C-alpha cells in the first residue's frame, strides 16, 4: 500500500482527538470530585459566608441562620477593626509569635532532633521520636496543665521546687515571661511535624550516597552540611510553608495557657481575637459579624504569605507535567 503521505489531521481524527481529550479531563475531574466537593462545601461556601458575615452586624443578640435576614452594614466592621487601638499590637504579636516559634522550634529544633535521632542507634531513635510526638497527641487541656504545673508558683510549681531545692529564689514565671511560655509550649508541639517529615526525608537518602561522602573523607558535620541539608531542601520548604499557616491559625494552646493575657492583649494573637470576638461565649454577646472581619483579615494574611512562599520556593517546579497523555 503506498498512499500519498496523508495530511496529518483529517477532520474526523480531530473530532476523535477532541473527544478523547474531553473524556480524559472528565476522568481527571472524576478523581478530583470527592476532594472538590468537600472543598466547596466546607471551604469555599463557608469562606463566602464569612465574607458576607463580615459586612453584617450579626451577634448573639440578633442571631438568625437565615442569611437574607441579616443586617447589612457595609465595611463598618473593618473600619472598627482598623480603628481598634489594639489591632496593631495584636498584628505584631501574631507576626512575632509565628516567626519566633517557627524559626526556633518548628524548623530548627525539628531539624536538630531529626538529625540527632538519625545519627544514633536506630531503635533509640525510635524511642526519642516517640517521646517528641507526645505533645502533639496529648489532649491540649492536659498538655497545658502539665506546663502550668511546671511553671506554677511555689509550692506547686515543678521549676520552683527545683529552685527551692537549689536555694534559689522562686518566681511567678508565667506572669513575668508569658511570651516565653507561649512560644515554648507551642514550639514543643510544633517540633514533631517537622521531625517526622525531615526524618523520613533523611532516611530516604540512598545509603550509598551517605557512605560515599564519609569515604571521601568528610566528617559527619560536613556530611550534614554538604550532603544531607541540600538533599532535604523540598521537605524544608514544605515544612516552613505548612507550619507558618498552622501557627497563624492555632490558638487553642494560647487560649488555655494565657488567654491572651496577662494584662491587655500581651499574648493575644489574631486567630485568638477572632475566636474571642466571634465565639468566646455562645450566650454572651458574641459578635459574629465583627469576628468574621478578623477572620477575613487572617485568611488574607495567610494567603499572602502562602503565595509569597510559593514564589520564593518555586512551588511550580513541584508540578511536573504528566508523562502520559490523552490521545
Amino acid at each position, binding site marked *: *500500500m503506498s498512499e500519498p*503521505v*496523508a495530511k*496529518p*489531521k483529517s477532520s474526523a*481524527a480531530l473530532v*476523535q*482527538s477532541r473527544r*478523547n481529550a474531553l473524556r480524559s479531563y472528565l476522568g481527571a475531574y472524576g478523581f478530583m470530585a470527592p476532594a472538590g466537593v468537600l472543598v466547596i462545601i466546607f471551604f469555599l461556601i463557608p469562606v463566602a459566608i464569612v465574607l458576607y458575615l463580615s459586612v453584617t452586624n450579626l451577634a448573639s443578640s440578633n442571631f438568625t441562620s437565615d442569611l437574607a435576614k441579616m443586617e447589612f452594614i457595609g465595611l463598618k466592621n473593618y473600619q472598627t477593626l482598623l480603628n481598634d487601638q489594639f489591632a496593631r499590637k495584636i498584628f505584631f504579636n501574631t507576626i512575632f509569635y509565628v516567626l519566633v516559634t517557627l524559626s526556633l522550634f518548628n524548623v530548627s529544633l525539628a531539624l536538630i532532633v531529626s538529625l540527632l535521632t538519625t545519627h544514633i542507634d536506630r531503635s533509640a531513635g525510635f524511642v526519642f521520636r516517640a517521646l517528641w510526638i507526645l505533645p502533639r497527641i496529648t489532649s491540649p487541656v492536659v498538655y497545658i496543665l502539665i506546663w502550668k504545673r511546671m511553671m506554677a508558683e511555689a509550692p506547686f510549681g515543678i521549676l520552683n521546687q527545683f529552685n527551692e531545692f537549689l536555694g534559689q529564689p522562686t518566681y511567678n514565671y508565667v506572669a513575668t515571661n508569658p511570651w516565653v511560655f507561649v512560644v515554648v509550649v507551642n514550639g514543643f508541639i510544633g517540633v514533631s511535624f517537622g521531625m517526622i517529615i525531615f526524618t523520613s526525608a533523611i532516611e530516604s537518602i540512598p545509603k550509598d550516597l551517605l557512605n560515599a561522602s564519609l569515604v571521601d573523607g568528610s566528617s559527619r558535620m560536613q556530611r550534614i552540611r554538604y550532603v544531607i541539608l541540600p538533599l532535604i531542601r523540598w521537605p524544608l520548604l514544605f515544612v516552613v510553608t505548612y507550619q507558618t499557616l498552622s501557627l497563624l491559625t492555632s490558638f487553642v494552646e494560647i487560649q488555655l495557657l494565657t488567654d491572651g493575657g496577662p494584662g491587655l492583649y500581651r499574648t493575644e494573637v489574631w486567630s485568638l481575637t477572632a475566636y474571642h470576638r466571634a465565639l468566646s461565649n455562645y450566650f454572651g454577646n458574641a459578635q459574629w459579624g465583627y469576628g468574621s472581619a478578623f477572620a477575613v483579615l487572617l485568611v488574607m494574611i495567610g494567603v499572602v504569605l502562602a503565595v509569597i512562599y510559593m514564589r520564593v520556593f518555586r512551588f511550580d517546579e513541584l508540578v511536573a*507535567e504528566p*508523562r*502520559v*497523555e*490523552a*490521545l
Partner: protein
Amino acid sequence: MEIRIDNLTKKFGDVVGVEDLTLHIEDGEFVAFLGPSGCGKTTTLLTLAGIYKPTDGLIRFGDRVVNTVQPKDRNIGMVFQSYALYPHMTIFQNIAYPLKLKKAPKNVQNEQVRQVANVMGIGELLDRRPGQLSGGQQQRVALGRALVKEPDVLLFDEPLSNLDARLRLTMRGEIKHLQKNLGITSIYVTHDQVEAMTMADRIAVMNGGHLQAFDAPDELYDRPKTRFVAGFVGNPPMNFLDVEVSPANGQFLAQADSIELPLGVERGEASAGHRGTVVMGIRPEDIQIVDEGDVRGEIFVVEPLGREDLIDVRIGPHSFILLADTEKQHRAGELVSLNFDMTQAQFFDPQTERSLLWHQ
C-alpha cells in the same frame, strides 16, 4: 502487522522529541531503533504505544490509523527498560494481568500464563514476587507479560541494558529466536549498536530527533549514508580526517598535510567533484601496521582489548585508531608504517554530512 509511520513529530513544549519521522515496517519484521541517549527513541516508541499523543503525523497499524486509538485497543506488548513489573503481585498475577483485564475466563488465564511461562523458562517462579527474582528472571517475566496477550506488535525499550554482559548475550539470542518463531512485528530500541546489528532485520538510526538512515545492518556498515551513521555504527568507531581529493596521473589522491593516500577512480570521482576539503572516514580494521609503507606515524597509546590491541597512532596533528594483533607487542613511542585500505574509505560532505558515495 505492518506499521507505517508518516511524518511523525512529537514535541514537548519546545523540546523536540522526534521530528518528521517516516518509516514503513513490514509485517513480521524486526526493526531496531538505534541512537545515542536522548535522541528520541523512547519518545517514538511511546508514541507508537499510544502513551504520547503525536504532535503531527500519522501512525497506521495495517490499514488502521491508530493516532487516536487508546493504548489498550492497539493490541501491543511492551517490555520496559525498568521491566515495570508490579511489585505487589506475584509473577503469575503479573503475567495474567493483561488477560484479567480482557476478562478472559480463569481457566484460560491459567493455561495461557503457564504456557508462556514455560516458553520463557520461568514456570517454577510463578508464586514469587518480582523483588525475589534476579534481573534476568525479571526480564523474562516482563517479556512473558508482553507476549501473553498475543500482541500484533512488540515494543522493546532497551530491555537488556540492566543485565550483565553474559546474560545480555543469551537474552539477545532468545529474543531474536522467539521473534522469528512467533513472527510478531517488533521494534527494539537500543543505544548499543552491537545489539542492533546482531538482532535486527533493519536498523533505524536516529540522532537529535531525526531519522539518519533506515537500512539493513550490512548496508549501514558498508554504505553509511551520513557521517553520523558511519561514526555511530561500528566499534571502535570510524576514523575521520579532513582531506583534499585531487586527480593525479589517472588516479586520485587524498591529501591532508603530509599524508597522501592514493584513491581508486570510482571513489575519487565521487569525492573530487566536491570543492575544497571533504571528510574522509576509514574504519580501524581497514588500517594495518606494515613493515614498509608510505605513511609513517608514532604510536601514542596501546590499549589491550584481549585478542587485539587498540592502538592510537599519531601522524602529525592527526590521530588514527586501529586494531593490531596482540602478539606484535606494539609499544607506545614506537615508529610504525601504516597501510590504508582505500577501497573501503568513505567520503562525506563537511557541511551536510551526507555521504558523497551513497547519497542519491
